[in-house]
């Protein structure tokens, strides 16, 4: 494991540690396979468009593109299995073992522990969304003070999670139709075709519009957020997206005096945007 700093200061700017190397690797692996799958799959769904055929030809046409698609699909499923293992391992180390050591390992405590996991949807996510709505409808100037993982990120996490389950299973049915036809009605293949394509469309649109907007196109991060490569998030983004965690981390690091206010809350004259991020004195 690389050495982690909660806050790293470089060229006078603060950077906040967010994602471990393992997580970043999983993410890169995830999006490489997903992009490949979208590029090799969508031309089939939209066969009658002008872009479909040239795109399909790049991957080798009807004789080879399905092979590329299947290889990428298997890799993605392998990542999914690895990720589940990763979750179980972390959960065992961080939650089960301490519970066991404390002798409180039982079902309610385990369930509580599961609910505590950072990616689990919680009450405060609903509150965050409510707050966001107030902000977006000009009812308050105050931005949402996001925690370590905001509702957006949880959405970004669970959408592909559900997507992989649906698309992966339906993909396997389509691939191994002979095997499945011994077990289930052939109509299952019809459903698998619908589910595979339609859920993939949802996932692709979700990722390439919503997720890309949040990490690439949004005026705050354009042209690209770098946290997925470096693991560190800049201070202004930290304030913008995860103010709750920001305050907490700053306090832990003993930097209470340098905590910037949440835009819209106190000092109205302070301009938002990159200028804010140039803290004087470093």
């Amino acid at each position, binding site marked *: 494991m690389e050495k982690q700093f909660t806050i790293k200061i470089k060229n006078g700017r603060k950077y906040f540690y967010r994602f471990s190397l393992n997580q970043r690797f999983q993410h890169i692996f995830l999006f490489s396979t997903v992009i490949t799958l979208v590029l090799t799959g969508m031309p089939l769904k939209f066969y009658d468009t002008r872009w479909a055929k040239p795109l399909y030809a790049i991957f080798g046409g009807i004789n080879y593109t399905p092979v590329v698609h299947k290889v990428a699909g298997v890799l993605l499923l392998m990542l999914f299995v690895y990720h589940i293992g990763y979750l179980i391992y972390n959960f065992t180390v961080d939650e089960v073992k301490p519970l066991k050591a404390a002798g409180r390992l039982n079902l309610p405590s385990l369930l509580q522990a599961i609910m505590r996991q950072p990616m689990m949807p919680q009450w405060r996510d609903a509150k965050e969304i409510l707050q966001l709505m107030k902000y977006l409808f000009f009812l308050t100037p105050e931005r949402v003070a996001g925690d370590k993982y905001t509702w957006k990120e949880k959405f970004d996490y669970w959408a592909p999670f559900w997507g992989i389950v649906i698309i992966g299973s339906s993909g396997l049915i389509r691939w191994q139709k002979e095997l499945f036809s011994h077990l289930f009605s052939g109509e299952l293949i019809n459903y698998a075709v619908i589910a595979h394509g339609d859920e993939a*469309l949802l996932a692709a*649109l979700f990722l390439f*519009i919503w997720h890309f907007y949040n990490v690439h*196109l949004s*005026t705050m991060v354009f042209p690209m957020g770098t946290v997925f490569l470096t693991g560190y998030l800049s201070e202004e983004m930290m304030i913008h997206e995860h103010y709750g965690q920001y305050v907490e981390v700053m306090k832990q690091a003993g930097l209470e005096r340098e905590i910037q206010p949440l835009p819209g809350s106190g000092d109205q004259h302070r301009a938002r945007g990159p200028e804010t991020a140039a803290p004087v004195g470093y």
Partner: protein
Amino acid sequence: MLLGLTVVWTVMIWNLTFAHLYKGDSHEVQTAKDPGREQPKPVEGKAAFQKQILDSEKTVKLYLGYQVLEQKQLLGHFHIVDIQLKPDTRNYCISCHGDIPHDKFKDLRAFGNMHASFIACQTCHIRLEGDQATHIFKWYDRATGQIVPSPVKDGALPGTYNAKIIPFERVDGALQRIDSQARIDFAAEYRKQEQSLSEVQKSKAKKIIHQQVSKQPYMCESCHVQQGSLLPFEELGYSKQRIDAFVGTEVIGMIKNYTQFYLPHILEPGIGSHEPEKKVQ
């Protein structure tokens, strides 16, 4: 800009999702309640135009494995149509008369149209006499309208040249294409303003456009003769072999058959069984 993009995305998502439910995007057809009873309605008006004109021909691809054959598909046509000539952009006659204009004489119409695919209308339908006659003919490209070197080469299939022969006339001592830009512009202007012209103006314009047109066009034997052909075949790039074919016994014999047995009145249009059909605008 991003706002616009968001709107575009929203529309796209709508089209990809709910629009399908709205349109009932099924491949179902309005199955008649009592199938087999409903009489097919005759197509008329706009729908007939769509069916008979717009949908009547399309380009399809035949995938032969080792070759993709582009084919003009004419429904019910048996032979494969593997060639499509580019539209003639220069010729202003065809903007009213069409590119397949000959239909007056049953035995000549297809030949006329065949020749029209590589000879401009003016070549036969205008007789340049006396001083006007230059005896100069050149090829022009159907697509660009520009004069081009002879497309007739060994191996080029006859009649597939994408070029047409156009005569030259002498105006004030200078050589010029008979389809001069001035004439093209005049005809184009007439087409543009036709709707707003008075009947007198229309007749005047038509007269002027057709001023040069000769009542009696050049016929087969004007060119298909051993001596004194109207068209200078050699200058137009034809090989000795091809010229021999043009004026050989097969072609000339066929023409003789036509003029002597089939169309004795060919030189006197309007007489005999071949009533000239009403001119269609």
